[in-house]
């Protein structure tokens, strides 16, 4: 009996091993290394030089990093509600659609599978102030050029539009699958009781979709904290440093300026922030996420 249990344990661990090895190699080890590198000055060529807490001290006086944190939080406040809220509305509308559901699903999800770099370049041209297509139509209807990418406020609108178009498909898909997984009996019961669509949405759909909402919320917050593609490709962090984000700052510090130690410090701090937010959300979920409904 004891031998059987031991065999079962070994096969269990062996089945887990591929995932554990991947996790260790591609997540655990880099996180650990970045924590260690935070105490060094290193440029890939010369030997790493131990600098103690210098990188951390420098972080507190780095005005550029402060701007990057501020910009990232701005993106968080703009993009999270867009992705989590509008994604849900779109998914609900398409789920309820009786015709052309396949068409809508395809149209909404398609941008997610296109390479970000290629479409970002196209969007850059579309949003160009003097020669862009959008401003051409604005001028055609008597308006004046809108500074889509050259105004520190408008640039957030432009990036939000791009981000919505490019990435909404993923959250839409999560919600759509979540909606499909809600047992029909609840809707039938609500219908028999004469509940309106709005009441059904708020009293059945939302609570039963809460695990998906929780998942989408966490993944969105994490991905917005790591936002890089949109500002890098559309604005190169500009105008000025208006759209420089933490991930952009890490890229510049570690991979352009080759200040690997300081770059590691920033990325480790970012890791701790994301971890803290995720833990808080995880603890808070008990109050609103419903798992036990079948």
């Amino acid at each position, binding site marked *: 009996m004891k031998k059987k249990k031991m065999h079962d344990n070994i096969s269990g661990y062996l*089945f887990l091993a591929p995932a554990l090895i991947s996790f260790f190699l591609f997540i655990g080890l880099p996180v650990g290394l970045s924590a260690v590198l935070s105490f060094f000055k290193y440029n890939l060529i010369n030997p790493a030089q131990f600098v103690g807490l210098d990188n951390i001290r420098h972080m507190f006086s780095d005005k550029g990093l402060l701007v990057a944190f501020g910009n990232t939080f701005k993106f968080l406040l703009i993009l999270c509600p867009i992705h989590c809220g509008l994604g849900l509305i779109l998914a609900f509308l398409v789920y309820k659609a009786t015709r052309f559901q396949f068409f809508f699903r395809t149209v909404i999800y398609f941008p997610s599978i296109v390479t970000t770099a290629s479409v970002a370049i196209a969007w850059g041209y579309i949003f160009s102030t*003097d*020669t862009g297509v959008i401003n051409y139509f604005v001028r055609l209807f008597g308006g004046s050029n809108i500074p889509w990418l050259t105004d520190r406020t408008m640039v957030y609108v432009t990036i939000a539009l791009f981000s919505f178009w490019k990435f909404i498909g993923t959250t839409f898909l999560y919600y759509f699958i979540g909606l499909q997984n809600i047992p029909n009996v609840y809707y039938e019961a609500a219908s028999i009781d004469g509940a309106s669509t709005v009441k059904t949405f708020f009293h059945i759909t939302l609570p039963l979709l809460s695990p998906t909402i929780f998942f989408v919320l966490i993944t969105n917050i994490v991905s917005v904290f790591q936002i890089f593609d949109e500002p890098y490709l559309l604005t190169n962090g500009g105008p000025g440093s208006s759209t420089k984000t933490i991930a952009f700052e890490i890229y510049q510090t570690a991979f352009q300026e080759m200040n690997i130690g300081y770059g590691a410090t920033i990325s480790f701090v970012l890791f701790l922030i994301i971890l803290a937010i995720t833990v808080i959300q995880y603890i808070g979920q008990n109050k609103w996420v419903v798992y036990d409904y079948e």
Partner: protein
Amino acid sequence: MKKRFLALLMAACMVIGLTGCQSGNSGNGGGSEAAESSETAAETKPEEDAGGAEDAGGKKEDITLTLAMCGDGTTKEALDNLLKMYTEKTGIKVESIFVASSWGEYCTKIQTMIGGGDELDCAIVAIEGISKFLDMGVAAPIDDWIAANQEIADAILADTSPAFQEIFKDDAGNTYAFPFSFNNVVMHFNMDRLKEANLELPGESWTKEEFLSYCEALTTEKDGIKQYAIAVPYGEYFCAEAWLYNNGASYMNEDFTESTINSPESVEIFQLWQDLIYKYGYAPVPEENVGAIDQIINGQVAMGSWGRWPTAQYVANDFKDVAVQYLPSFSQNQQIGGVDGIFTFNSSKHLEEAKELAAWMSQAEFAGAYLSTGNIPALHSLAEDKISSLGIPENCELFYLDSNTDIYKPVSAPPQFTECSNIVLTAISEICVNKADVQATLDEAAEQMNSVLAENK
């Protein structure tokens, strides 16, 4: 029992398979350049195993050198054909790697390749990366090659600018490369736009007032779209400093220990750029995805400041109505210079052969065949011949007229070039796009730059 054994076996296979995949993946990481140099490593290894380095009696036919170049690869075919000639001559094979990026990013890529253990023998390095590589001690001096080939070296040195030769020397006087190609910065004009405004090419000592009057005349509207006079040097560290030099300013002092970007002369030029956009409306608000060279070709702007590199685009677009003149003399006419050379690396396992290749590439035979529309050949005689034979732009002799003199002032390129470049370009963007206060922005930039340059003191 059999089932359990099978399950164990399958799990073990999965683990082995996965770890096998991982090591394979990591071996291919780093893109095609890394893959290319891995091949090079594989090619050079048997020769070492089979009896050590070629200097210990190995055949030159077995040697493959790896050469990194900066560019999008459009000249790769031409380069590879020339390198085949070199192979026929010497028996040494050369593999070329093109890195498509700006000079700053290219230098970072080279740094990553060396740090990552890729076997890189030679690389073209521009002024932006020279002090960085010298500071890190990765470049190999070529003084022994010069001593052994004095006649060839003298011929190269006599035909290139002494100001550029100095850039390739360290504090101890060791030489690391010969000047290969260079750029100064001049004003490019769309001559169609000038003709439409009844303007001639300005004189070589044109002043700020004349420049502004040209801007006034060249700002028009065509088919409802505004036609601008000038594109400010946005995102162009090198070109922007050329404007500062003509007003007696620069980003930093000559020994790179202190920033001077917030000096009154510098502020005056940055203020001029902001005014050209917002006060006078002579220049468009610069954008990341809008190429100013395209704008001068299609006539949307009439003037722009660059080196000779736009000629490649002019030729590709069959754009011939273009002329060049020195930048306006705000307080002086001080030409800027940015030069590159072929470096050899200490880590090369075939250092002597690498130095031979670098020297061959710095001579007229290679440079004359390779450099046509882009950079200016560093050899004065060659530059005169190549540039005048291309015929465009009008007044093109400005590119080579002084190229064997020490008239050029090199662009500010400290070992911390990337950091300083990021600071300068952000400041330009803040001033030219965000309409930020010029003095305050440059004070902030100077403070950031001083903290970066502090380690040079």
